[in-house]
């Protein structure tokens, strides 16, 4: 007789590997053999985790279809079980897995689509903390603004891709008309963020992306603007700043750390590695 901890370890080993040798002797078999009874649980585990992944990576699922997605999910699950029960937080490694998944090698944009789905999922599961408004900024002396850091609201991130991710995403909406996307038509820089009732994204320019990524890494406004100018000498800080304020992608004052000089450089609102790595265009 197995102690409960050993029984649970044996059951877990079976569910992952499909090898029932360590557990089948502990299960009652009758007109339904023990192995067939055990298979119900193994099937359920894979089906329910694949369903969770299909919900989080709904654009990927839409692109590849149910059968392909289920097979890909099964392969992912075999080496990536969740470590806790909140399934909206399951799948962080899925995009990298998709990039290496051999049967998807003819769909080179698929991993970036998965990165967009994951970023939207993270933005959706972010708090609706108050956002910075133009009125808030009137309390900051104008000469101090350049040295200020402005944190991005939780869940805000920039996704870059050499593929037109926004066009691909649009064709996957349930009500989208049948359409084709030229993969070479444009690369994408998408600002993903939490909105009031959902998560969404807008396309941003190279300079705006540089500005946002600089702020995310903890730079002050002046440093952010310099990064943007380096990307595009015609960058207009006031236009971009007004647009980003309007989108609500900056955390409100009370969620900012304003006294850099006393506290030292504050940590960025989110880590730089939450960005997808920029892709180089293939020659």
């Amino acid at each position, binding site marked *: *007789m*197995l*102690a*409960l*901890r050993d*029984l*649970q*370890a044996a*059951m*877990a080993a079976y*569910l*992952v590997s499909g090898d029932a040798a360590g557990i089948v*002797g*502990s*299960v*009652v078999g*009758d*007109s*339904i*053999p*023990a192995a*067939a*009874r*055990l*298979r*119900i*649980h193994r099937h*359920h*585990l894979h089906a*329910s*985790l694949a369903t*969770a992944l299909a919900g989080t990576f709904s654009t990927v699922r839409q692109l590849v279809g149910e059968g392909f997605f289920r097979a890909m999910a099964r392969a992912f699950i075999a080496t990536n*079980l*969740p*470590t*806790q*029960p*909140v*399934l*909206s*937080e399951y799948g962080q490694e899925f995009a990298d897995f998709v990039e290496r998944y051999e049967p998807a090698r003819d769909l080179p944009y698929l991993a970036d689509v998965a990165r967009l789905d994951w970023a939207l999922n993270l933005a*959706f*599961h*972010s*708090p*609706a903390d108050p956002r910075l408004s133009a009125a808030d900024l009137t309390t900051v002396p104008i000469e101090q603004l350049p040295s200020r850091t402005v944190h991005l609201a939780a869940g805000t991130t920039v996704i870059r891709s050499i593929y037109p991710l926004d066009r691909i995403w649009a064709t996957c909406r349930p009500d989208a008309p049948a359409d084709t996307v030229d993969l070479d038509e444009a690369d994408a820089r998408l600002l993903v963020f939490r909105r*009031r*009732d*959902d998560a969404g994204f807008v396309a941003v320019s190279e300079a705006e992306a540089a500005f946002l990524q600089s702020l995310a890494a903890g730079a002050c406004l002046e440093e952010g603007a310099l990064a943007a100018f380096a990307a595009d000498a015609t960058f207009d800080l006031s236009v971009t700043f007004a647009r980003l304020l309007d989108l609500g992608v900056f955390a409100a004052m009370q969620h900012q750390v304003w006294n850099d000089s006393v506290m030292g450089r504050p940590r960025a609102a989110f880590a730089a590695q939450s960005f997808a790595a920029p892709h180089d265009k293939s020659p």
Partner: protein
Amino acid sequence: MAPVAGIGLRAPHLAAIGRDRPTTAFLEIHAENYLAPSPALEAVERLRDDYALSVHAVGLSLGSADGLDEAHLARVASLIDRLQPAHVSDHLAWSVSDGRYLDDLLPLPYTEEALGIVTGNVSRLQERLGRQVSLENPSSYLAFTHSTLSEPEFLSEVARRSGCGLLLDANNLYVTACNLRLDPKAWLDGLPMEAITEYHLAGHTVNDADGAPILIDDHASRVGGPVWSLFGEIVARLGPRPTLIEWDADIPALEVLLDEAACADRVVAEQGRGHARAA
């Protein structure tokens, strides 16, 4: 009799329920879907003043020999603190082993060892939340050769030792009885009536297991006829309790859920009268 039947609050219905505020005895959510912030959690918080809530957890893994995951427990406690639900529950099952979450309600051997472990975990949960929780009978697809207690004996003893409530799922009982060749009426005889806090109802499907039928508790259809009959028997014997219609896959129009709840209320009104006469 005031309605006792509530419905599961699922994402496709969130906007309609927020807008139309249909009448229902309570709304149930799965704890694990609301532990991270989201617009959906904010929508539930807006409903809190108008509806009694039931927080039904599926991932506490009360049967784990490893004990409870304190980090997860803290998140559940925080949600319960925010929502102040009328009911809190999870299952007599396990889903965590060695830090891996096996997304299923996995079966336990009904042994003295497991009884001690479940009682300890339920007691820890109640201590952390500062309130009673209810333990739900699972749908079973297999039994272990070394079980020494029946399921009602096991549930009764956990309730007696920990002071927890028992959530009686009529569909789970029907599924278990068919799959493990038990008599559901004899099963009911072993349950302490005073510990029962809530009923659940759901649909199941019939699958094939190596040529023999096996019932799968998939929460993807209306409550089946035999389960309505068993539910009537339960209410006649044990009296009315808050009753949840569960529907978690192939989710239908809100009106269908509300209609199922109305059916449950009719059974309770009918059988509850019989119960009152018998009492």
